[in-house]
């Protein structure tokens, strides 16, 4: 059903995201980790576009790549974590349990995905996510969460500023 373009696009963006995610986790230089996190966000935004959720894709691009990635970079610069540099001999052994747990979870979910019957159904035609519909839903059906998010964001903003503030009042 999908045209050739879509398949190529999915493979390309999927591999980009996974590659960047592996880099974000594995690289030694923390600044490179931060940047590959930004690339992961761009990749995920691309995946949203593939799933016809344009609006969400651009919001993700705007919020994550624009702000969160830069924020992570700032903090990496300020605190200069020398995480991967000191290479104790037992580093390899210490990583093993983490890797095992992560692989275990992956295999379990993979198994679940493969057997679940609901995935056999055919692919419904793409329902374009129209902005007007999202807007109306936000304001009418989901007004409370919208307001709650507003309050949460302002408190988070002020809280974060107070925490990080130098000088005499912010301890």
């Amino acid at each position, binding site marked *: 059903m999908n045209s050739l373009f879509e398949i190529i696009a999915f493979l390309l963006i999927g591999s980009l*995201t996974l590659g960047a995610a592996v880099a974000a986790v594995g690289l030694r230089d923390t600044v490179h980790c931060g940047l590959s996190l930004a690339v992961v966000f761009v990749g995920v935004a691309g995946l949203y576009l593939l*799933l016809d959720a344009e609006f969400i894709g651009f919001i993700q691009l705007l919020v994550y790549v624009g702000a969160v990635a830069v924020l992570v970079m700032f903090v990496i610069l300020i605190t200069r*974590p020398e*995480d991967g540099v000191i290479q104790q001999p037992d580093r390899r052994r*210490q990583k093993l349990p983490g890797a095992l747990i992560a692989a275990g979870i992956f295999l379990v979910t993979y198994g679940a*995905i493969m057997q679940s019957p609901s995935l056999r159904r055919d692919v419904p035609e793409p329902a374009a996510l129209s902005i007007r519909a999202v807007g109306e839903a936000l304001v009418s059906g989901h007004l409370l969460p919208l307001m709650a998010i507003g309050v*949460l964001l302002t408190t*988070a903003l002020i809280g974060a500023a107070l*925490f990080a503030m130098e000088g005499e009042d912010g301890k």
Partner: protein
Amino acid sequence: MIGLPLFLILSTMLFSLGLFAVLTRRSAILLLIGVELMLAAANLNFIAFWRFGPNPAAMTGALFVLFSIAVAAAEAAVGLSLILVIYRHLRSTNPKEVNSLHG
């Protein structure tokens, strides 16, 4: 054929990578990067189910992702400033050393 299973597998891979990062990395920021990866994987799942799910017009999945992006952004801001304060206090960001409860 790009169906739901492929997207789910992709997001589970992302999720397990995030988990691996959280479990093994020893610096607080890389911990946070792992959490961000897991969040991105979760959002990807939501949108995948919204797209291939029975009733796309309801848009619950998409709206939920909108809210989750906002919350994740706020959480990232607060988390990072926490790390900053801890770093300024303890001069190191290794989560193991953040164990003294006084002060």
